[in-house]
C-alpha cells in the first residue's frame, strides 16, 4: 500500500471517497452525478484551452507542493510556504514596477531572483530558530503566515498602493517584467515551465545528490544521521531556505505571469493546498504533478461549470474538503510517528 502511495497514487482513495460523497449530495439536491462529473471532466480537460486553464490553476500549486515537500521529507514541518509565496510575490512585483523598464529582457529573471531571495530569507528565520534553538517550526511558520498576510496587506494598502485607484492593488509591473504566455490567449504562462523544471530538479536532488539524500536521512532518523556525520542543523536550515526559494519563486511567477500586480487575495491559500498535495503524494514528484493538476482542474472546472449548470461552488468545496481531510490524517500520522521517535 505504502509503496503504491509513494508512486503517486495517494490521491486515488481520497478522490474516490470524495466523489462518492459528492455524488450522494448531488442526488440529494436532484442533480445527476454522472452529468455533473462528465461536465467537470469536459471543463477540466475537454479541449486544449480547458487543459491550459487547468494547468494555469495548477501552476502555483506545483510551486507550493515542491516547497512543502523539500521540508517534509527532511522531517521539517514547515507550514509557512503560503507566507513565502506572498512575500516573494510582493517583492518580485515591487521590483517589476520600480526597477527601470530599460533593463529589458533581464528584468523578468531579475524579479524572479528577487522573489526567491525574499522567500528564502523569510523561511531562513524559522529554519535557524529550529536548528539552533529548537523552536517548534509548526508554530513559528504558522505564525509567520499571519505576519506575511499582515505585512503584505499593509504594504499594498499603504506604501505600494496604486494611486490610480482607491482599491488594494499595486501598480502593474513593466511589460518587460511579465512572463510570456505559452498558448495565448490562455493565461497559462512560462511560470508553469519553471514549475516543471523545479519539480524535475527536486526529483534529481532527492535521488541523486548527497545533500538530498542526507535530507531524507534526517527526515527518517535524526540520531542516526548525526551518528554517520550528517549535520542535522545544516540540513534543516538548507531545507527551509530551499523551500523559501521555491515558495518565493512561486509567488514571483504568479505575480509576473498571472496577475501582473499584487492585490489583496494574491494567494488563494495556495500554500495550504500545495501542502495537501505534497502530503497525499508522499513527497513523490510524479504524485505532486498529478495532485496539483487535480486540484487545478477542480478549481478551474468547478468555477466554469457554473456557467452551464446550477451546480454551486459548494460542490468543489465538498470534494476539496474531503480530500483535505485525508491530507490532515496523513499529517496526523506523520506527527504521531515523529513524537514516538522523539
Amino acid at each position, binding site marked *: 500500500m505504502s509503496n503504491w502511495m509513494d508512486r503517486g497514487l495517494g490521491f486515488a482513495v481520497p478522490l474516490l471517497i470524495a466523489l462518492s460523497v459528492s455524488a450522494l449530495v448531488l442526488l440529494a439536491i436532484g442533480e445527476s452525478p454522472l452529468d455533473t462529473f462528465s461536465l467537470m471532466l469536459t471543463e477540466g480537460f475537454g479541449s486544449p484551452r480547458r487543459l491550459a486553464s487547468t494547468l494555469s490553476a495548477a501552476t502555483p500549486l506545483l510551486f507550493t507542493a515542491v516547497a512543502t515537500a523539500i521540508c517534509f521529507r527532511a522531517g521539517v514541518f514547515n507550514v509557512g510556504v503560503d507566507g513565502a509565496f506572498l512575500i516573494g510575490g510582493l517583492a518580485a512585483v515591487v521590483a517589476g514596477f520600480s526597477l527601470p523598464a530599460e533593463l529589458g529582457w533581464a528584468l523578468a529573471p531579475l524579479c524572479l531572483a528577487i522573489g526567491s531571495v525574499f522567500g528564502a530569507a523569510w523561511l531562513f528565520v524559522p529554519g535557524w530558530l529550529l536548528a539552533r534553538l529548537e523552536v517548534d517550526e509548526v508554530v513559528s511558520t504558522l505564525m509567520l503566515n499571519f505576519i506575511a498576510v499582515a505585512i503584505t496587506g499593509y504594504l499594498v494598502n499603504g506604501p505600494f498602493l496604486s494611486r490610480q485607484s482607491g482599491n*488594494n492593488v499595486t501598480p502593474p509591473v513593466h511589460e518587460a517584467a511579465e512572463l510570456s504566455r505559452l498558448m495565448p490567449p490562455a*493565461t497559462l504562462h512560462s511560470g508553469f515551465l519553471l514549475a516543471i523544471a523545479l519539480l524535475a530538479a527536486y526529483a534529481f536532488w532527492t535521488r541523486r545528490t548527497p545533500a538530498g539524500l542526507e535530507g531524507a536521512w534526517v527526515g527518517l532518523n535524526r540520531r542516526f544521521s548525526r551518528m554517520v556525520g550528517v549535520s542535522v542543523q545544516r540540513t534543516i536550515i538548507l531545507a527551509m531556505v530551499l523551500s523559501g526559494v521555491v515558495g518565493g519563486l512561486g509567488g514571483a511567477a504568479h505575480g509576473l505571469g498571472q496577475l501582473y500586480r499584487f492585490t489583496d*487575495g494574491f494567494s488563494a491559500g495556495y500554500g495550504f493546498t500545495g501542502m495537501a498535495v505534497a502530503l497525499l503524494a508522499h513527497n513523490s514528484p510524479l504524485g505532486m504533478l498529478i495532485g496539483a493538476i487535480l486540484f487545478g482542474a477542480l478549481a*478551474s472546472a468547478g*468555477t*466554469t461549470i*457554473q456557467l452551464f449548470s446550477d451546480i454551486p461552488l459548494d460542490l468543489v468545496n465538498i470534494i476539496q474538503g474531503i480530500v483535505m481531510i485525508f491530507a490532515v490524517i496523513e499529517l496526523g500520522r506523520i506527527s504521531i510517528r515523529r513524537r514516538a521517535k522523539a
Partner: protein
Amino acid sequence: MTFKKLLAGVALSLVAVPALAADAPVAMIVAQGGLGDGSWNDTANAGFEAGIAETGLEGRAIESNDVVAQGEEIMRRAADSNFGLVLSLEYAHGEPMEALAPDYPDTSWAIFNQVRPGANIASVLFGEHQGSYLAGVLAAKMTTTEGIEGINPEAILGVIPAVKSPGIDKFVVGFIQGARSVNPDIEVKVGYSESFGDPTKGEQMANAMFESGADIVYHVAGGTGLGVIAAAEASGHYAIGVDTNQDGLAPGHVLTSMIKRVDVATEELIKAYAADKFPGGQTLTFGLPENGVGLTEMEFTKDIIPAEYLEAVEAAKAGIISGDIEVWDVSSQGYPDFYK
C-alpha cells in the same frame, strides 16, 4: 402615474419584441468574499436576480475560490460559450477585461468603480460625492444639537479617509461641502489613515478626533473604518459608515451610512442589455438622481435625530437631483479651491 407606467410598458414591449433584443444569457462574476458577504456581492446579486427575473433572461452568478487569478479564464470561457453580457464585481478584473474585450466584440461587458475604455465595456461609477454631501448635511446639523448624548456644542466634525487620491477625496470634498451648506464656519478635521486595512490605526485616529472636539467622524477607509466605528461605540460618540449599511456594526453609534446601490446598477444594466440598449463604451454614474447612492434608513439612530434634520437632508437630496445644488466631484473636476 398608472398611465405613465402603461406608456412605459408599451415602450418597453416595443423594444423587447423585435428579434434585435438580446437573448443570450448573462453571467455575473462574484468578487472576493463570495456570495453571503452581507455586503457588496450580496447587494449586487439582489439586483442581478431582480434584473434576470424581470427580463426573463438566463442568468448565472459565478463564484470562485480563486477569483482574482482565474478572472481572465472565466471571462473568456463565458464569452466563448455565447454569453451575451458578462459583469464582473471583482475590482482586479478591470485590467484583464479591458485587454480581452476587443476579442469578443459581440459580447457586452461591465465593470464597477473604475473606467475601462472599450466600445463594448460599460464602466459603472457611483456618485459618492452626492451621497457624502447628504451625510455632511446631517452631521453638521447634529453636531451642535443640545441634549443628545455624545454630542458636544462645538461645531467640529471629522473625516478619516484612507489615502489621498481623487477616488477617495471625492467623498471627503462632498462631505465638507454638505457640512458647510449648513454652517459655513464648521470645522471639518481630515486625517488620512494611509491604509484601508488597519482598524487599530482607525481607532486611534478617531479617538484623537473625538478628544479634540469632534463628535461625528465619517470614515472612507474600508477595514480601517471598522476601528473608527469601534472608537465611536467605546467613547459614546458617532461614526458614519460607508459603501454598505454599517449601521448595525455598532447600533446607535453609527449615525448613518453612505451606501452605494450596486443592486440598482446591476439591475439597470441587465434591463438595458435585454432592451438592446446596452451602454457599451460609456461611463455610467449612479448618483442621487439614479438612486445609486444614498443614506441608510438610520434604523438605530432615527429616534435621536430631529425630524427637521431629516427634512433638511431630503431637501438637499431634492436640490441635488433638480440640479439646484451642484456637488463638487474631485474625480472628474480635480480639487476645489477650498480643499487642496
